């Protein structure tokens, strides 16, 4: 055993490292094993782990997605327009109802005033006859 002394030079260590770390042969059937694994890998069904959005790379799916998006935008627009129109109709009906209620209220006030006035005249006329 060649034992380096305490003054062992770094160059000697490096030389020993080169010897210790020389390339070693792989097992004799290494290449065959790799080829067998490659063949096995190629023959086995591939489980694709593509991201979900990769389906849009297919032209049919892409066109279907574009059509669906356009249709949903159009349908959404129509629906939104209808909702807005219905709401406007509702607002107009509400305004009409409020106007009708205001008119009815003023008429009621008028009728009430008349009734009060009649009541007042009826209560004053018998007292006069009693005095006479």
């Amino acid at each position, binding site marked *: 055993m060649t*034992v380096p002394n305490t003054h062992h030079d770094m160059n000697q260590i490096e030389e020993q*490292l080169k*010897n*210790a770390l020389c390339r*070693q042969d792989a097992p004799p059937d290494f*290449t065959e094993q790799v080829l067998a694994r490659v063949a096995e890998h190629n023959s086995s069904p591939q489980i694709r782990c593509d991201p979900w959005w990769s389906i849009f790379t297919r032209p049919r799916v892409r066109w279907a997605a574009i059509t669906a998006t356009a249709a949903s935008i159009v349908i959404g627009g129509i629906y939104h327009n209808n909702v807005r129109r219905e709401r406007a109709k509702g607002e107009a009906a509400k305004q009409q109802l409020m106007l009708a209620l205001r008119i009815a209220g003023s008429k009621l006030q008028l009728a009430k005033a008349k009734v009060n006035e009649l009541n007042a005249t009826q209560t004053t006329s018998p007292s006069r006859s009693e005095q006479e």
Partner: protein
Amino acid sequence: MADSALAEHPPDTATAFADLVHRHRSMVFSIALHFLADRSAAEELAQDVFLQLHAHLPTLKSEDHVTFWLRKVTAHRCIDYKRRRTVPQVSLEEVAEPFAPAPAGDPIFERKLRHVIASLPGKARMIVILRYQEDLGPEDIAQVLSMPVATVKSHLQRSLALLREKVLRSIGEVTI
């Protein structure tokens, strides 16, 4: 190795791939073996690297590119493998090496040296392996491991000093 090797042998044929594996298997296997100090694990890891190479062949342009890619992938796989397996394993390296040919020089000392190298931290160990097995310079190692050249140099210096100290200490223990 000629850069035009890939052009001469179209990589999509099985024969060309087998030729690539045959040319580089010793390099990949040795990096894994010296790093993991476990023959069966090194063999499995090397096979995985070549399997990955087969999938990436169309992206590799030249023989040099293949060599660089293999070193890079092997190095990173080794470091990842060791990081995942923190539980100490019984290494065949420590038991017997029936297949491995004895390297030139003192086999006992070199075996001891390999044992000491195996005790280095992951990245430092890989740097030492790439430096002394593959004879790469710090710049090339930095490219393979995607780290600054200065870091590689400092790792190398520290590792060499540590190795020298550990080897001397272990030899001292043996002689005592």
